[in-house]
């Protein structure tokens, strides 16, 4: 299809000719192919050449197949530059009025629908079936996930609830109780913390991952054994912006069954397979959204940037002139224990938490490269925790 757009050019291949369209206006400029720079610089350049400095933009480009693909990070920006031959055609839209349906890899399958058609022709009112509005994967915000399936015993479930700033209440209650454990001395009744009630319509209930009478074993990687109900309550509330609870579900029939080669796969998400509760994982936000991306039902590892973003750090500062700013993070690293799940759930975390910067940076790097080495350790430790 790109032959339609072929532009005769006598310029050298080292530069990329860019034709950028915003609304009815076109701008033309060129970029150095070998040194494209970063996306945010590019984005700034676009705002500059269109003279729209304060408009949030959705940047799309036409690839060789005529598909309209987004440019919103360094990777796809570099990809776009590398595949432009030689003209890079950009389509800018205001973010708030963006037509997401124009994007997608399936535009080939839509008969006779070119990129231009997709962008220029607004979906008109008399179209029979309005297309499903699907936003970009990165625009999704997860609300819950099961994590660490590969390192936890099958009887346990580690659930992450993303509270963020949303209105929905977390919506559950906990109570004291007792559970039976296998110890070297035989069966023993030990006190434990249990989920006692779910608030209808709350985040906890809507995920379907937690249920009444599930025993709470850990909160954000810290064992609750030996802690009072009030302590556990305070821990959960302190972590409520990004709560990770490890539970032993009262109903053990919906457990994740680990595949035989379990734990081998990296971030592919293929190592865990849900038996029947898959629908509930993403069910909450948009039914039918599963086609957007390879549905990583089970997120195994966190991206470092994701961890950074979920910090509760953004205290609000209002300066004398009345403008509210979230507090930027200062250069030095946070010394506290990052609020991320620990892969050594049964080790003494207090010492780690109290440790100095060295240990904390150590744990940070542990996170960015998922530490398989620790897995063995935690599996050994599981012995003390397996319950009936």
């Amino acid at each position, binding site marked *: 299809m790109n032959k339609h757009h072929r532009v005769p050019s006598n310029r050298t291949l080292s530069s990329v000719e860019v034709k950028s369209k915003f609304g009815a206006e076109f701008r033309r400029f060129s970029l150095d192919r070998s040194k494209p720079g970063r996306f945010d610089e590019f984005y700034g350049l676009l705002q500059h050449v269109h003279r729209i400095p304060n408009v949030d933009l959705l940047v799309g480009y036409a690839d060789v197949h005529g598909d309209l693909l987004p440019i919103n990070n360094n990777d796809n920006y570099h990809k776009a530059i590398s595949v432009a031959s030689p003209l890079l055609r950009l389509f800018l839209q205001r973010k708030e009025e963006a037509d997401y349906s124009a994007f997608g890899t399936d535009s080939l399958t839509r008969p006779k629908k070119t990129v231009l058609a997709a962008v220029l022709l607004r979906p008109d009112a008399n179209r029979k079936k309005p297309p499903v509005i699907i936003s970009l994967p990165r625009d999704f915000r997860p609300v819950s996930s099961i994590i660490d399936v590969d390192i936890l015993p099958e009887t346990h479930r580690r659930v992450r609830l993303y509270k963020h700033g949303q209105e929905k209440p977390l919506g559950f209650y906990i*109570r004291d109780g007792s559970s039976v454990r296998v110890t070297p001395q035989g069966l023993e009744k030990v006190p434990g913390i249990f989920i006692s009630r779910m608030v209808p319509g709350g985040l906890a209930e809507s995920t379907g991952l937690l249920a009444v009478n599930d025993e709470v074993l850990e909160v954000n990687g810290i064992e609750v054994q030996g802690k009072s109900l*009030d302590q556990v309550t305070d*821990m959960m*509330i*302190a972590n409520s912006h990004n709560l990770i609870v490890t539970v032993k579900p009262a109903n053990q029939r919906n457990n994740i069954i680990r595949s035989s080669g379990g734990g081998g796969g990296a971030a592919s998400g293929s190592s865990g397979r849900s038996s029947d509760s898959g629908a509930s994982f993403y069910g909450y936000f948009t039914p039918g959204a599963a086609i957007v991306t390879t549905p990583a039902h089970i997120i195994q590892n966190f991206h470092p940037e994701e961890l950074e973003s979920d910090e*509760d750090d953004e205290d609000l500062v*209002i300066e*004398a002139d009345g403008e509210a700013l979230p507090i930027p993070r200062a250069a030095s690293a946070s010394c506290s224990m990052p609020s991320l799940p620990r892969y050594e759930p049964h080790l003494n975390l207090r010492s780690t*938490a109290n440790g100095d910067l060295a240990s904390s940076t150590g744990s940070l790097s542990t996170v960015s490269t998922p530490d398989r080495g620790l897995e063995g350790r935690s599996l050994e430790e599981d012995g003390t925790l397996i319950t009936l």
Partner: protein
Amino acid sequence: MKRFRRHGQESQRERIKQELYGFNKTVEHGFPHQPSALGFSPGLQLLAIGTRSGAIKLYGGPGVEFMGLHDENAAVTQVHFLPHQVELVTLLDDNSLHMWTLRAHHGVSELLEIGRFTLTGPPGAPPSVTRVTAVLAHSSGDLLLLGTEGGHVFIVKVPGFRELEERNISLEKVTNSVPEEYGGRRSLEHVESLQENPVNPRQVLIGYGRGLMVIWDLDSQSAVKHIPATQQLESVWWTEDGGHVLSSHSDGSYCRWKVAGDDPQSEQEKSEVPYGHFPCKAISKIIQLPTEQGPPFLFLSGGMPRASYGDRHCISVIHSKTHVALDFTSRIIDFFVIRDGPDHTGEPSALVVLVEEELVVIDLQTEGWPVIQTPYLVPLHCSAITCSHHVSAIPLKLWERVLSAGTLQNTHYSKKPWPMTGGQNLAPDPPQRDLLLTGHEDGTVRFWDASGVCLYPMYKLSTAGVFLTDSDPNDNLNQGTEGEWPPFRKVGCFDPYSDDPRLGIQKIHLCKYSGYLTVAGTAGQILVLELNDEAAEQTVEATVADLLQGQEGFRWKGHTRLEVREEPVTFPPGFQPFALVQCQPPAVVTALTLHSEWKLVTFGTSHGFGLYDYQQKNNVLVRCTLNPSDQLAMEGPLSRVKSIKKSLRQSFRRIRRSRVSLRKHHVNNAAKLQQANARLEAELAEMELAPVQRKIEPRSPDDSFTGLVRTLYFADTFLSDSSHNTPSLWAGTNGGSVFAYQLRLPPVERRGEDPVTAHPAKEIQLMHRAPVVGILVLDGHGSPLPEPLEVAHDLARSPDMQGSHSLLVISEEQFKVFTLPKVSSKMKLKLTAIDGSRVRRVGVAWFGSTRTDDYGESGLTVLTNQGDLHVVSLPGVKLQVQYPCIRREDVSGIASCVFTKHGQGFYLISPSEFERFSLSARCVVEPRSLVEVSSETPSTTQPRALPDGASVERRNSTRDGAAVLQEIQKSLEVDQTTFLENGTSALAGGNVLSN
């Protein structure tokens, strides 16, 4: 990963930590909660108090204190010292006997339990046979006679507790040796009293509950004489010459019996009901002591006419024509009399009475029998403690002025020195003068010398005079009327009934350099006071601070504002109020800070905070922090101001009044215990049925009391630009907000005229919304900014204004450091997210190293809701050490904790006792004293401090200023023996600063 860390550094840090931090609970100040037994050793000059919780405390001269705790959680019912020894025996509620000794170890005595014993009767015998009711430590020092409920007397060899079965005095032996008409027909009942003949240690008097007394010869093992009293026996006293026996009875009578002569039956010389005609209560204890010339002293406890004065707690002292019924504030536990002379056989010099809430000592040798002020065991709770404030290192000048103001208040006390002189106080002088201020429910602030082991009362400030209250001014005048019978005289200071709960003190701040004090109370009143050595008459001007600032929809349902006296009030020398701010609505003041250099006071309530200029006497700033949707804060608590002093007092007494005589209390206790246990079990079962639930929900801005101001802080720092430091005010709320104001102060010469202004500079909303409990600015070196005037007095290094300052915000959940002037998060320490504990109390302290004098670190001392103490380093905010300190169920103990600037702290272990603890390895105040048996003469005991504080004065007045510190420092290095000899140890508080 940890494995690869450098071990050298780690262990180096560990070593430094050991040199800086160490946790010790060092001494308990105040009055033991629920005392149940009293003992006294004339030879050692020590008194012992046992409590219902099983504690045993020994006190000698000021600073000589020992404490022990029985493993059993049973009440101590009796304490007896073994004559001429350092051992003592305690009898517990569970019928076990315990032997304690004072063992010298490294030159310091320690109280140790060395044996325990329970009487075992013959198989099959009922428990009453061996239930001990009376104990006599025989003067030989190695025999213990134990009278039991079954009427038997067991003889036990001590200290090993070996039963001498063949010498036991069984009830049968006794009944066989007295005439039929006394012995046989009816049971003699339990052994009420055992007394040794003062002139013949072979003879012992056994008093039985029904009234019969038998004099038993231990050698011949036979009854020598019997005394045929017919009334229920309460107590027995054998006069010193051995010629007479006094017995007191349950009908309020006492009898004198002649026991000299050979007649096997003693005759009654005298029988009297001192408060007679109408039925009287029992005389529970009787003592008669001779005087050199003239009539003896007679002491009777109880015996009041049942109907009219049955609710009084009285001890009658009768000497010649003088007859006084000392009327105590609470139930009498026991009493004894101290006598003069090297052998403690001379004139009675002091009457020591232990009542349930205080220890009262009456000087019997001064006209009018005045009270001697106690150097320890002071009832901290004479009115309930509502807050406390500690000020370290008081300048000498202020110290002396407070002392002299206090001395003027204590003119009614006896001038005699404290009569208890046992033991040697080996503690060195404290390195500095520390004040502990306690605020009380009745609107008083008490100043305590907290430098050493003895928490000594210095001065009492009353704020009630500023206000019109419904207290009855005639209340204190209706006593001592001429010719009243019985001749009551009120003694003691325990008075827990508050005239008006609104007077209660909630916050205190004292500037030790300027002598300005500010106190704030329950009804939103803030008083600013100045130390004045003269009495002065003034009118206190009130300024109202409207904290609502026009907030709509508000209805305050709480108490009303206190009414201020319009007419001028005469204030005695001491702290005199000169300015008053009244918050509107009159909610309890929750935060208070004074800046004496800027002459500003800031205060906060659940509605907002204000800034008051006490030089110009006007409000500089009022800021409402209220969330309009917060109904609870809007309405305030329900009014509780309905109590009337008298009716309260009477209803309390009615409850306490009981006709059950003491004798039966063993049985009652057991029954009560069973009942309580049953109730507890039922409660537990109920709990199982309906478990407690906790909601897991992040805090929201609409939660209750988010606007409550928790902390206020003044700082001279870089608030808006990094080149100019300015005065600033910081406020932190319950909802995790921090407000910062930039202050503009006029130049000093125009300070009286030009207004002080405050401009909002910053607001920070912590995302985790936990209550902000502390705000601190760290200077360029990372050290906390010094206190106002501290630098001006050359007592602190001036803060580093070159490097950039940082702001430390302490919330209940996190410690967070921000950069200044641009507020951005620098580092933080999470507490709650990691172990579920929350910060309850926080203080800044300097920890000196034990190794070198010149090394030290600043740190935060933190108490959590779990009762754990932490030290958090500054400026790095890292946890250093953690110690469990208070039970987490002890909420009031945790709430009462106050930290000192040198790593010590105090918290209430009962309404009347402060536990002192130390987190610092260098700064430890603990008793160090030695008690030895005096071989010949009691010369080990030397005259000690004058309890009126004169000795403190003497010590201080001889030196001045900075020389004091130097000299103390020097004396610390000097050999301890020479140090003791130079007499400086004669200090009203025996004190230790161990190196």
